[in-house]
């Protein structure tokens, strides 16, 4: 127990975390690239066309993992925010703040690919489907976090305000999702929810999971890249940053 606690303390020190990130990023990036390449090949080339939707179903390989990531990242953001609020760990603050634009990107992708999937299938660029509508609300939650962080001058205060907002949001997400589904079933009538495949064939499931895993590693890479910048920016005056800048010069 003591070793774990001590490790978390070292992990919380900016220079240690920075160097750890430097070492991890290439490996994570390689894993990400391999998984995405595998997923794309199996999904776009190997998997057979769907008997109902033809070739257009292949959008799910980017739509569904994006939607999953958009939710996952919000939860991570809230978790990091909780750590930042309770234990005042600078790294946690940086991770919470850095997660927001990445999460917003995935939410945006889920919405765009959802529209592009919906148009050939149901003839409309937008359907008030429960999942798409929930994603739209999630996008606004992300934008709120990003806006709030930008509006507060002091970076540490801003990070802690964002942490509170993220926690409030994460509690609300299941409530929003459930109420939107309720709304949707009563207003849509008997049509089946559009984005749920009744059962997914293994040849389509594997590329989907590969893409999802690839996106996870992508999140790790993008997050660490942003946290690196945040750490350097925050600790500009300190010696370890000076050394690193000197090495690069």
């Amino acid at each position, binding site marked *: 127990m003591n070793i774990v606690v001590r490790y978390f303390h070292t992990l919380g020190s900016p220079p240690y975390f920075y160097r750890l990130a430097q070492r991890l990023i290439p490996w994570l990036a390689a894993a990400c690239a391999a998984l995405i390449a595998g997923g794309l090949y199996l999904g776009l080339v190997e998997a057979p066309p769907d008997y109902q939707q033809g*070739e257009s179903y292949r959008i799910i390989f980017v*739509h569904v993992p994006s939607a999953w990531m958009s939710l996952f990242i919000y939860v991570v953001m809230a978790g990091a925010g909780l750590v930042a609020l309770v234990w005042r760990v600078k790294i946690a603050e940086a991770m919470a703040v850095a997660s927001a634009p990445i999460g917003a*990107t995935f939410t945006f992708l889920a919405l765009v690919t959802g529209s*592009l999937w919906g148009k*050939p299938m149901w003839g409309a660029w937008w359907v008030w489907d429960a999942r798409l509508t929930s994603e739209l609300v999630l996008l606004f939650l992300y934008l709120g976090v990003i806006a709030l962080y930008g509006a507060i001058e002091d970076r540490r205060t801003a990070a802690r305000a964002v942490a509170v907002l993220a926690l409030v949001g994460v509690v609300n997400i299941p409530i929003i999702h459930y109420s939107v589904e309720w709304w949707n079933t009563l207003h849509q009538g008997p049509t089946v929810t559009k984005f749920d495949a009744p059962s997914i064939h293994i040849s389509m499931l594997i590329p989907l999971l590969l893409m999802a895993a690839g996106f996870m590693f992508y999140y790790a890479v*993008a997050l660490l890249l942003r946290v690196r910048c945040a750490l350097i920016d925050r600790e500009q005056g300190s010696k370890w*940053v000076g050394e*690193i800048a000197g090495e690069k010069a």
Partner: protein
Amino acid sequence: MREFLQMGGYAFYVWTSYAVAAVALIANIVVPLRQHRRLLARIARRARRRSAGE
């Protein structure tokens, strides 16, 4: 190959989806990378100026 690009007539929808995804994901890597380089350069410049001034 032609069938692959055509995607059964859905080419626009499928390829636009992947293109938008590619752009968004690459941007989220490139932007922090550039910012990192710029930050380090700025700090190095300031350190050089400070040591030159002493």
